[in-house]
């Protein structure tokens, strides 16, 4: 019998070792971030991680400020942790990302690491990042895109003209683990998302092991075949978020 459920977040990330390459989903909202997987990774202490993320993220302190600035509009979940926490804890060696730094005067934890020479970054546009991850899921080794020539992202890469337009050759990004957030799952690992699906959908299947953090596990057959966004063959582990949030990310879960 297929059952991809894993009992705890700590167990789900237990084989993510130092130096692992991770795809990390979620973006632009506390409601689509794989927060419990991030917290478990923080507790595990795995270091020297290489990670793809849309954004390096703002970090716990800035997130708190944003939450109170938006308090009249959105009720912020208290169990929100993002990749900035891992940067703050010094667990990230390298990010491949489209937003490495804060805007204006805001300085993010990863940016502090960068400035201190303790981390490195490969800046890439979001489109090529998405396509490179999708290429890994789909078995494409590399592709030519018109986005990038004439800018820093093309440095050292092959440029070739197609119909007179320069294109840059971009390579697939295949990770050891993909950590994503979904809404509902069944025991096959079939996933349904809610809201913009961001990299959460894109990254599923682009790693040796895809781990989905979900709000709810439903019986097999409850998810209609036309409604499933991610087929279970892309997912190796599913962990359900607790109904009662822990007091802090440090609490085993």
């Amino acid at each position, binding site marked *: 019998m297929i059952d991809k459920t894993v009992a705890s977040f700590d167990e789900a990330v237990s084989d993510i070792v130092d130096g692992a390459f991770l795809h990390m989903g979620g973006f632009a909202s506390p409601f689509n971030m794989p927060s419990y997987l991030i917290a478990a990774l923080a507790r595990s202490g795995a270091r020297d991680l290489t990670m793809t993320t849309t954004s390096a993220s703002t970090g716990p302190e800035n997130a708190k400020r944003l939450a109170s600035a938006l308090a009249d509009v959105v009720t912020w979940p208290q169990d929100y942790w993002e990749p900035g926490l891992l940067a703050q804890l010094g667990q990230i060696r390298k990010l491949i990302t489209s937003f490495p730094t804060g805007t204006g005067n805001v300085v993010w934890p990863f*940016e502090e690491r960068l400035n201190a020479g303790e981390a490195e970054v490969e800046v890439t546009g979001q489109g090529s990042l998405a396509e490179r991850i999708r290429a890994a899921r789909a078995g494409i080794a590399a592709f030519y895109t018109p986005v990038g020539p004439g800018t820093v992202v093309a440095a050292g890469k092959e440029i070739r003209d197609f119909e007179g337009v320069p294109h840059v050759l971009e390579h697939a990004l295949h990770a050891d683990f993909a950590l994503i957030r979904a809404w509902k799952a069944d025991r096959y690992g079939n996933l349904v998302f809610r809201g913009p699906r961001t990299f959460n959908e894109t990254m599923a299947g682009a790693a040796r092991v895809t781990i989905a953090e979900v709000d709810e596990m439903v019986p097999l057959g409850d998810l209609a075949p036309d409604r499933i966004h991610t087929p279970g063959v892309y997912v190796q582990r599913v962990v359900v978020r607790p109904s009662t949030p822990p007091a802090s990310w440090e609490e085993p879960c």
Partner: protein
Amino acid sequence: MPDTLPGTLPPRLDATVMAMVVVREFFDGAVVNLGIGIPMHCADVIPPDREVLLHSEHGLLGFGPLLRTAEGVDPYCFIVGNRPVQPQPGMVYLSHDESFSIIRGGHIDITVMGGMQVDTEGNLANAHPPGKPAANLGGAQDLATCAKRTMIMMYHTASDGSPKVVERCTFPLTAPRCVDRIVTDVAVMDLEGGHIVLREVAPGWTPEQVQSITGARLVVADDVREISLV
């Protein structure tokens, strides 16, 4: 009431009026991506007689204006910066890869984004501020390269008064030769064959006054006129 003291300049447009200048081009049925920051003002002033589909990179198409109170908030319907927006009938949620397939496949009619520098070749720099260790490219490179029309909506000069419309960008490029039109708080300019053509000036401004705060030589259109919102 233009300021007529010698050496001083007329008042500039505010962000809402700039947005009204930009949305003149949002035709009925247009698919439009608005950058975070000043371009988001456009969402508030789209004429109600036109259906414009707003696109956001993380997987959202067809949403409404930013919500500024808790009323009507769907916590799953938001744009970059964790800001909830108004859900609309016909809206679609997407994955990041499909969302960028829309951008890179040429399915966006108009992209409106902020700018730090635009030069005479239409090169755009808007991602890597001085002093920052790396660029925040986001989806700007994809949008500027692949949208059918790229509009830059920005203040004409930086906060220190330095020009943002320049002969040659000195900041790292977001994308080369991508800009079609620049809308600022004092002018509307088009990029044409290696020239920046001054099409419209803010009320009270002369082409010479616009030129005086611009870092590139402007070609003044034969039919240059005052900005009108019609």
